[in-house]
């Protein structure tokens, strides 16, 4: 049967190709040769929502015709961006030269040896940046990435109900009576079981004076009365109805929707909500809201630091160009462009004090306070396991099926198992 014979040949061809490929060596080089060479590079980032990257790359390419940058855009989902980077790094792909890493992945990638340490000829000048952002790019005392954008939590509040924002958590909780009288839910953040929950729980614990892990970034420090105070605040607010029951399903967008529909008095969310709440057609709070730093305990609250860093891959073949591109991303012009074009939060401290920018972007000043008082999430190479430990147990506590003490103890134990590699 001719057809049968053809199919056998086809089958053998496939096998042959596979074997030839396998024995032909791995897909990427180890990257140790040609570190200093210059040449075209690829910049990898998640979805460029606000269309800032392409114009910047065009500008760079015009000025550096021999060292052009190609933009590889990933999906919009953080987990997928993470997994995509991991796949390429594991395959030692030299096709990814400069990568944009979320602040929580920097330690993990650094510990796996995938990021070029920024020392020696790659040393960066961090004096003009907001201090907390540099901490996120440092692992084990060495800097592995260059901060390029930041983000902090802001308190959005209804000016028609509260002429001045609450300064402490207790004040906000007593303000809830006014909110209830007006028929409006009191406070919400992000409490669904995902990374946003870790952000909110860290904020609560850090604001109360506690910490999730110690200075080494590994040892859990959740056994303190301050940590208990922090987590209890959220649990009690759920119990008393000060946080509406449905907030347990909220990610960023659901909270924004509730606030814009006028159903919330206070919202804890990133800076992006500011513009949307002012311009969305369905927003009923357009002229009735303002922002403030998160309520603290005598001083602004400790918001959780967000943002992204730019890092050079160890496997890149054109590290000198990559280094220059990273410096370009941190330059004053680029950072200003991030603000004006993309409404992103820059890392360059001076921009926050610029009068013209402040006039146009009303959230900048508050955002600076927020970032200056921000605490990063645990800088741990086992971050996926750490955040899972925090999410699972605090979610159970918020739901009321686990006591706060048990939740904190389990969190500690689970973080410890993450450290021992199991």
């Amino acid at each position, binding site marked *: *049967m001719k*057809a*049968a014979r053809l*199919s056998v040949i086809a089958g053998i061809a*496939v096998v042959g*190709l*596979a074997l*030839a*490929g*396998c024995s*032909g*060596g*791995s*897909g*990427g080089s180890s990257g140790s040769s040609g570190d200093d060479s210059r040449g075209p590079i690829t910049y990898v980032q998640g*979805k*460029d*929502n*606000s*269309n800032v990257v*392409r114009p910047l790359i065009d500008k760079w390419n015009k000025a550096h015709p021999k060292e052009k940058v190609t*933009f*590889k*855009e*990933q*999906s*919009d*989902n953080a987990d*997928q961006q993470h*997994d*995509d980077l991991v*796949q390429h790094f*594991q*395959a030692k*792909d030299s096709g990814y030269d400069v990568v944009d890493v979320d602040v929580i992945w920097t330690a993990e990638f650094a510990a796996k040896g995938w990021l070029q340490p920024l020392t020696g000829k790659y040393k960066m000048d961090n004096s003009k940046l907001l201090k907390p952002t540099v901490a996120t790019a440092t692992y084990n005392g060495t800097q592995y990435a260059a901060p390029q954008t930041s983000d902090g939590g802001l308190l959005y509040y209804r000016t028609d109900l509260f002429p001045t924002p609450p300064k402490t958590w207790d004040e906000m909780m007593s303000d809830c009576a006014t909110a209830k009288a007006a028929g409006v839910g009191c406070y919400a953040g992000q409490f669904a079981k995902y990374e946003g929950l870790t952000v909110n729980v860290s904020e609560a614990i850090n604001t109360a004076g506690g910490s999730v892990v110690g200075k080494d970034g590994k040892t859990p420090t959740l056994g303190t009365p301050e940590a208990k105070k922090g987590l209890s605040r959220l649990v009690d607010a759920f119990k008393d109805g000060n946080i509406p029951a449905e907030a347990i399903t909220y990610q*960023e*967008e659901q909270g924004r*929707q509730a606030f814009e*529909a006028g159903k919330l008095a206070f919202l804890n969310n*990133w800076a*992006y909500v500011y*513009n*949307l709440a002012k*311009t*969305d*057609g*369905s*927003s009923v709070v357009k002229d009735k809201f303002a922002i403030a730093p998160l309520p603290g305990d005598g001083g602004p609250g400790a918001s959780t630091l967000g943002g992204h860093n730019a890092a050079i891959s160890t496997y890149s073949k054109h590290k000198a160009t990559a280094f220059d591109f990273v410096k370009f991303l941190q330059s004053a012009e680029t950072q200003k462009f991030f603000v004006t074009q993309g*409404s*992103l939060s820059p890392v360059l401290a001076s921009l926050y004090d610029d009068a013209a920018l402040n006039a146009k972007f009303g959230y900048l000043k508050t955002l600076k306070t927020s970032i200056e008082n921000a605490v990063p999430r645990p800088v741990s190479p086992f971050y996926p396991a750490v955040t899972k430990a925090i999410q699972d147990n605090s979610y159970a506590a918020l739901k009321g099926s686990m006591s706060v003490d048990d939740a904190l103890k389990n969190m500690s134990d689970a973080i410890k198992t993450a450290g021992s590699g199991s």
Partner: protein
Amino acid sequence: MSAIAGPASTRAETEGLAAAGTRAKVKPRRRRGTAQGIRTGISALVIVVWCLAPFYWMVVTAFRDVGFTFDTTPWITHFTWDNFATAFSTKLGNHLGQALLNSLFIGACVTIIGLLVGTFAAYALARLDFRFKGIVLGIILGASMFPGVALITPLFQLFTNIGWMGQYQALILPEISFVLPLTVYTLTSFFREMPWDLEEAARIDGCTQAQAFRKIILPLAAPAVFTTAILAFISSWNEYLISSQLSSDATQPVTVAIASFAGSQPHQEPYTAVMAAGTIVTVPLVILVLIFQRRIVAGLTAGGVKG
């Protein structure tokens, strides 16, 4: 009971089958027809409503202005074409049009090659005698038992090593493998039911084995073949996990393209644009199905289809 029983197979028998299977023309039960017709009609209506209601909501959302994404009015309010424009726009690096073509191409390759390969195997399993049939069936079934999510990393490394990363082959070959077990099992099961006496009679009359298969068995198995084709195509159309890792910008299918839609701000979810893209993506499939739906119910007519 069965009109096909018995070893005496002749051409007349085949024609008899054809006549018997032409359901559309048989109308002996006029009296009970109306009552049953009404029941059928109501059932059909219920089914259509159940199947289309969420799709309706998807379309309503697709036409709604993005500033009113969370509006729950059951009909279209704040009508706009913007979301469709956003879905197709290439400004932010999306290429839905290209992705549609990719999906169609990949789907066609997967379906055609998968059916070809599957039919060969099914014929052997149904018709020929050899010793390790059980083991072969077991291996083929076993391929459907491993969690797909765990295949991504090894396949990523395999295709990077071969140098096929981001090319069509890297998408088509895995998808064929996912579709093969079901294809082989379905076709084998149907080939077993075929009247092989007819085939043997044809061979006695002078056809080769292949000709007899093609001319007698395949037409009778047409419903099964077309059903399997549709299953294979839609399975490939739906595939996301592997495509997201192994495709490049130029070769990404619609599932990956839609997943990379973004709002104008980080953290913002572009629901309305995604719904618009979903609507766009469903239309070609519905058209395909409308064209081929007659073939799914060919009945026992030897090659003739009365829809």
